[in-house]
Structure formats: C-alpha cells, structure tokens
C-alpha cells in the first residue's frame, strides 16, 4: 500500500494524492459542519455556544476541505480573501462597542430591542450579535490563516 502510494506520487509528480473517498465525503460533511457552526453561533445568545466556538468550527470545516483538496482548489471553491474577513471581523468586534457612544452610554454597553415578525413572533434583537459576528469572522479567519501558513511551510 505504502509502496504504491509512493510510486504514484513520484510518477505523476504531485504531492497531493487523489483520495476519492475523502474528497467526496468532505464535500458533504463540509456543509454539515458549517451548518452546525452557525447553529452554535446563534445558540450562543442564550445557551452555550457563541462566536468563538462557532468560528473555530467554521474554520475546521474549511480545514477539512483544505486537507481533502489543496490550497488552490479551496481558493477556487471559496474565492474569499481571508485577510479581508479577518479585518472585517476586527472592525465589527471593535466598532460595534464603540458605536454605543452614539447612545451616550459607556463603551461596550449593548442595545437591545424586541420586534414582532409575522411568522416567527417576537424576536430579540441585540447588538451583541453583531459583536459576536466580528468574533466569529476573526476566529475563523485567524485559525485558517495559521493552518495555511503551517501547511505552506512544508513545500
């Protein structure tokens, strides 16, 4: 087994081996993991969860794709500049608390309200969600960034 793998690698001149199972499964699992990460993120409003765990899970979904394919394919699948994601995340995390100055309250004071939506009924709107989006994006992008950096170093 090991021998044949080595053989194909040298013959085709590529390091990434073509693993059909992993690639197929990861396409499916990716969506499940991403959905779970969103679920965790929104659950964090009242129950355990939140931006940090959600962000880590989202990053792990992307890392799964990264393992199954390679960096180029991942860039083709998701043409997002992760540095920009990181920056937007930081901006949300720092900007939303600062905006509370507009309400005349100290830094980090959150504003919240309840609105009536036709189908769902009463929904709580909270500025902490926006802050948490910032955390989510920052954590996801940073973790991915580090993994990519470590992965690149091998070549």
């Amino acid at each position: 087994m090991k021998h044949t793998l080595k053989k194909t690698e040298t013959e085709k001149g590529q390091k990434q081996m073509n693993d059909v199972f992993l690639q197929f499964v990861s396409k499916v699992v990716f969506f499940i993991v991403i959905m779970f990460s969103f679920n965790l993120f929104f659950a964090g409003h009242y129950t355990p969860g939140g931006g940090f765990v959600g962000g880590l899970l989202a990053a792990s979904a992307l890392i799964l794709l990264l393992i199954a394919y390679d960096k180029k394919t991942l860039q083709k699948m998701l043409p997002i500049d992760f540095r920009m994601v990181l920056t937007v995340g930081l901006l949300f995390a720092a900007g939303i608390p600062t905006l509370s100055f507009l309400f005349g309250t100290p830094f980090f004071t959150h504003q919240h309200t309840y609105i009536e939506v036709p189908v769902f009924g009463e929904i709580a709107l909270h500025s902490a969600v926006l802050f948490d989006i910032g955390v989510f994006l920052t954590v996801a992008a940073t973790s991915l960034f580090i993994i990519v950096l470590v992965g690149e170093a091998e070549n």
Partner: protein
Amino acid sequence: MTTNILPLLPIMIPFFSGIIMLFVGKRPIAHRVIAAISGLLLIFSALWLIIEVYQNGTMVTFLGNWAAPFGISLVIDMAAALLVTTTAIITFFTIIYSFQTIGIERENYYYYVMIMFMITGINGAFSTGDIFNMFVFFEVFLLASYVLITLGGTKIQLQEGFKYIVVNIISSNFFVLGLAYLYSVTGSLNMADISNKLAGFDGSFSIMSLVAVVFLFVFATKAGVFPLYFWLPGSYYAPPMPVLILFGALLTKVGVYAIARTYSLFFMDNTAFTHQMLLFLALITIVMGCIGALSFSDMKKVIIYNIIIAVGIILVGIAMMDESGMLGAMYYLIHDMIIKAALFMLVGFLIYRTGQTNADRLGGLIKEHPVVGWMFFLAALALAGVPPLSGFYGKLFIVQSTFENGQYVAGIIVLASSLVVLYSVVSLFIKAFWGEDMDFTTLRPVKSDKILFASIAMVIVSIAFGLAADVLYPLFEMAAQSFYDPSSYSEYITEVE
C-alpha cells in the same frame, strides 16, 4: 459624555488605525501616513486626558455600564495619564524614525499595524482598573511584540525571538496562577475593590505574601529585575532599531508600572517582607546592570544594560513607598522612557550611518555629525542625572527617600550607579565622536533627515521635561499620591456604592 469617550481614546485610536491599515493592504506609504496621523491624535488625546484629570481628578468609565466591582472599569489617574502621554510621544517619534530605518519589506508585512496593536495593549495596561483586564492587555501587547521581534525573519531574530516568547509565556501563565490565588483570597478582581477589602480585613495576611511573590515573579520577568533579566540583553539585541526603541522605552516600564500598582494596592500589610524583598532585588539589579554596562563596548548592549539599571533605580523608589520615594519613581519612570528612546535613536543613527555596532571601531565622528554628537552628550548627561536635566529630579527624590527611611546602602548604591551610567555612556561618546578618525569613506550614504528629526526631537523633549520639572510638580504629586496613599486611588468605588 467625555468621561465615556476620553479614557478609551488612547486604546481605541491605535486599534482602529491598525484595522484601517489592514483594510488598506500592502501599501507602505499609506501605512506611514495613517500611523503618523494616529500618533499625533494619540498625543493630543493624551494631553487632553492630563488636563481633564488635573482639573477633575481621577477619571473612571465603566465598560458595558456595569458598576465598579462587578464590571470592568477603566481608571485613569494622573500616573496613568502621564504614562499614556509619554507612550504617545515616544510612539509618534518612533514612527517617524521608522520611515527611513525599518525597510520596505517589513513595512509591507504590517509593521505599523503591529506597532499600533502593541500601543493598544500598553495603553490598556496603563489605564485599566481591573487586574484580569490588565493580564489581557499584557497579552495583547506581548502578542504584538512577539510578531515585532520576529518580523523580517533573520536568523538572530528567530533564535532570540523564540527564547523571548517562551520566557514570556511562562511568566504569563504564572500571572494567571497569581490571579487565581488573588481571586480565591479576595473574591474580586477590581483593583480598587481588592484594596478596600484588604484594608478592612483584620486576619492573617500570610497568604498575601505568597501572592506577592508570584506577582513579583511575573512582573519582574517582564521588567527585567535581577534574577529574571537573563533574557533581556539577548532578546533586545536581536530586533531592528525602531523595534528596540519601543521595547526598551515601553515594555519593561509596563512591568515596573504593574509592580508599583500591585504593590501599592494589594501588598501593603507585610511591607517588612514584600517591600524589603523588592528593595533587595532592585539593588542587585542595579549592580548587575552596572557590571553589564561597564563590560561592553557594543553601543546597543551598553544602552540595553542601562535599561536594567534604570529599572532597578525606579524599583528602589517604589520599594520605599512613601511620598518622596514614589514622587522620585514617577519622575524617573517618565524621564527614563523619554531618554532611553532618545539614546536608542541616536545610537541607531550611528549604527545605520556606519554599519558598526561596536564603539571601538568608530572615532572622530564629531567632524561629520557635530549636532548628533552634542545631542548624544546632552542625552548622556540627562541619563546620568546631571542637575538641570531630567534625570536629576527623580534620583534626588529617590535618594532623599532612602536616607529618610534609613536605607543608607540603597541611597549610596543609587548614587554610585549614576557615576557608572555616566562613565559608560560618556565613554561611548568619547569613543565614537572623538579620538582617532575612522575611515569616513566607509560611511553609508543613508537618507537621514527624518531619523535626525525624530532623535533630536526626543532629546529636546527630554531637556524640556527637565527644565519644566518644577512646573510639572503638581502633576507628579498627584500621580505619586495614588501610589503611596492607595485610598485616594480606590475612593471611586465608594462613590459608586
């Protein structure tokens, strides 16, 4: 409204300018402009802060509108305001200095962003009123400093940077451990609240001595106090000059500030043990720093060992913990931040101009650079504490306090160390600027107008500080009061309740 916004400006301005620079991407010129503008804004906001604190007393803001012992509070007393101002001034001039020294590759790799994040952490550590929040801000500026020390990735940077990181991670872990002990003893993390609780407690304080030792271990590692300064000369030698300016002028001083804050607020009950230990370590630090400063002719190394001496002298003042001692410590802290930045800038100019770090290989530079030469001389005198210049007042008060408290040995060591400081820096001056002419054709044709602007401006700031010391006395009196009289710092919490 001002109490809500103003205390946060020193933290938010650098953070947002860092984010804006990340948005702009790899465009060094834009980074320079943004960094310089935010440096200026920092200076203005810090000066405004001083005026506000001088008129209305300590400024407090509560994050998230949670009242004091429960939420995180930012407390800016005069000491914090002065330190934030000094940080802002040094940051601005270091950014100007970096334009022509740091090199375009590092600028491309978000050098200014990292500086701004580091300043965020430093200002946060100065202005927070919550001990755990202080840990978080420590980590913020340490993370940025890890990036700065390895940015560029030369061999010596990677090698020394790794040691620096490991030492600091270990001491940060002990910081968390110390916080755990402190929390289990006092049940609070607000520094003013802890101080009040301990003042009203009449039982055994023996556990607090243990906490004091853990905290001293942590902050002594950051500040470079005697048994734990081993990492400092090697690690500070590695990064390029502008990074060294920031590290040398600011990072160790945050550790010193943290020692002063915790030892004045938490550990006032067993001063016979805690403060004597601090004094003892401070004196050995001075002696070891003197030995180091005398034994090198490498310009960077000499100034780096002078950092260690200065930390020792400030700690002597803090260990006295009376009015004149703290006054001297505050004067010397501010003075040392400014003068170390100035000296590092001048030495950096020489290194960039000649390509040599060893003063023995230089000579006769006074013909080429008379202004730099005399500025270096003035800075050397100020560092040693020659009367009209800024170092004098701090040392005067510290020595006065040691004699008042009967610690004659400490006073004599502090006085003797000034001679060593003067000798070590003036010998650099003599070797580099006088003596046999070096080969002037080997001088590098570097663009140096901004380097010289920043260096000379720092020396002028230092001289102005020395001449204005009398005018600034009320400010320093206020700053010292919140240390030797902790109840004046923690009275805001009783106002809330």
